[in-house]
């Protein structure tokens, strides 16, 4: 070895110390502290909200998890997945089938479903090694469509795996056992609507915390650095002695596992396993919504996915609350749902391509600097690429390769 590490002594010890230090609240930067407050606030929602409102908000927690799952692979490595609901559906249907048709306990169902969804990630991740941008988009796009057809094809009976069938378009025949519920088969049996609603909410919240921690830990570790380097330039990764294939597959497997876990938790926390909930009413629109959420919030940040899901849900909520009648058409504004939300998403995509969170951090830094009388940082780090920009560059090069254009 030509170069020596400048450190001697026990590196393991120092790493442990460093992790501890990073977890000290008082050491956190402002934006991290805001993040922690926001999570605490989410956890305290049951204090301010009625059980009905809690139930309405619960799906948003799952949207957040789904969006994080997308961000891990697509936001970080730049491998765009257009059918991400594939993983949610595998997780949700998987755990539901395991628990209702094979009589296995809920925990086993969740673990199995997570593993199967991770395998689904492998299934998509391997073609991703050979296929470039648009081709990969197609593979990811048809995955949930094939799954949908599978549900119809085996609606009555899928030998061995689902003896009672996958239920076709209407969803599975029975609601799987709950983690917290009234029925005997629930993990925690409660009585009273209030405690039931609380139970469902906190189940979802716990799942959210798990998904957030996993995604956060991986993307902030050195694997996360490699993910973003893959998005930038795979050759640089290779010449640094790192195997891009390994990390790409890992990203897909992780996204699959996380998405599948969230899908499984969804059906055991009050969600019904049907295609409308797990693939979207238009079969692939949940996949598209998840992308919109992650991009609105800010790709390649994990936190952005969470914020984006919240914004998306808020918009939908506002649209649904507007019950005035539109003059010429004679229908309520709310009946237009989801058109206004989609329209807003288009505007954000065109005018705020980097997303809300990075923009907010940038503005926040400038404001704080001004407030403290320090030198105001540059509005744009000159020349630095944002995640969206580098994903775009990668995609453009791949497309130009394929159609043989010579625009450099």
């Amino acid at each position: 070895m030509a170069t020596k590490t400048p450190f001697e002594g026990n590196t393991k010890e120092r790493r442990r110390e460093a992790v501890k230090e990073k977890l000290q609240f008082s050491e956190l930067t402002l934006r991290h502290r805001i993040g922690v407050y926001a999570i605490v606030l989410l956890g305290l929602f049951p204090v301010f909200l009625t059980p009905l409102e809690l139930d309405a908000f619960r799906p948003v927690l799952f949207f957040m998890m789904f969006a994080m799952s997308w961000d891990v692979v697509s936001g970080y490595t730049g491998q765009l997945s257009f059918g991400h609901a594939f993983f949610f559906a595998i997780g949700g249907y998987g755990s539901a089938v395991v628990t209702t048709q094979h009589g296995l306990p809920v925990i086993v169902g969740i673990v199995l479903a997570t593993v199967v969804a991770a395998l689904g990630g492998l299934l998509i991740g391997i073609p991703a090694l050979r296929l470039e941008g648009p081709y990969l988009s197609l593979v990811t796009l048809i995955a949930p469509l094939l799954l949908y057809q599978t549900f119809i094809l085996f609606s009555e009976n899928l030998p061995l795996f689902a003896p009672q069938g996958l239920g076709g378009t209407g969803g599975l025949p029975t609601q799987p056992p709950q983690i917290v519920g009234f029925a005997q088969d629930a993990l925690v049996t409660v009585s009273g609507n209030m405690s039931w609603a609380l139970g469902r909410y906190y189940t979802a919240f716990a799942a959210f915390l798990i998904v957030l921690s996993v995604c956060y830990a991986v993307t902030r570790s050195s694997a996360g650095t490699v993910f973003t380097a893959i998005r930038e330039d795979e050759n640089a990764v290779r010449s640094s002695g790192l195997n891009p294939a390994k990390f790409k597959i890992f990203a897909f497997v992780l996204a699959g596992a996380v998405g599948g876990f969230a899908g499984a938790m969804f059906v055991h926390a009050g969600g019904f396993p049907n295609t409308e909930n797990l693939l979207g009413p238009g079969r692939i629109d949940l996949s598209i919504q998840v992308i919109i959420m992650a991009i609105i919030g800010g790709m390649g940040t994990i936190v952005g996915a969470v914020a984006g899901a919240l914004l998306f849900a808020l918009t939908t909520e506002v649209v649904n609350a507007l019950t005035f009648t539109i003059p010429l058409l004679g229908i309520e504004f709310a009946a237009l749902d989801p058109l206004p939300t989609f329209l807003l998403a288009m505007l954000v995509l065109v005018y705020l391509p980097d997303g809300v969170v990075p923009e907010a951090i940038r503005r926040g830094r400038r404001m704080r600097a001004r407030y403290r009388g320090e030198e105001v940082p540059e509005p744009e780090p000159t020349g630095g690429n944002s995640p969206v920009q580098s994903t775009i560059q990668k995609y453009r090069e791949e497309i130009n390769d394929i159609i043989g254009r010579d625009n450099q």
Partner: protein
Amino acid sequence: MVLDTILSATFISALYAVIAIGFTLIFGVGGILNFAHGGFITLGAFSAYIASGYFGLPIFVGLLAGTLVGAAVGGATYMGVIRYVRTRPVTILILTFVIGFFMMYFVRVFGREILKIDPLNIPVDPVIGSSSFGNDVFIFATSWLLIGALFYFVNYTRTGRAIIAVSMSDKGASLVGIDSERINLITWVLAGAFAGYAGVLLAGSLGGGSWLMSIEPPAPLVLSFAIVILGGLGSIKGSVVGAYIIGFFETFTVTFAPGGSQLAGISSLVLLLVFLLVKPEGLFGREAAE
């Protein structure tokens, strides 16, 4: 039986080719994968319903309406949105998805709330109502007429050759004085018109349209993607060949495979997946130089 199947595969494949060609054109010229293509198809069928089903005009007028609306939304999508984000392919990709779904949901909301019809079953008549064979022949003949006309237009007219030039290099084309903005607009209008036209015929031969028709079997949106990949992204000739491969494969599996009718919409996807993994550059793809 076999002869019938060959015949019906020959007819339906021509329609598939028309469905896919617009998608090919936009990819070839602008390098854009236009997922709003499904929206164009759906709006085309919906317009035909409004003209003929709602206003009671002959279905020929409906076919014309579908084609014109397709052309109009194609042009509007380019002028209103795509033009402004042309340098950001990923944004475009996601935007076209959102736009496509916007159009689909528009059909759903408009159909359900205002016209009070079932958005999953929008009645659109076949153009030749008296015999399904006659209708198939009509589809086949006009599809080939359109494909031929497009082929002539692209290869033998000034504007067509400008399209080819832009598809090879924006910069090169602008150097010789071609207005690539105009060429792109023409492409989008053409693609929209083809999609709208195909949407009307498809809905007619399936016995009705639906807000989800672009992703329900035979899933024309996915089909176009599949056909274009089989034929090599960006080649008109390739798309026609791809359409015939997919059309034949699909018709034959549906007719002859056990439980075949259940496989409608799946078989071509599976074929495509296998193909993608074995030969990702397509049948007529331009090979990347090493």
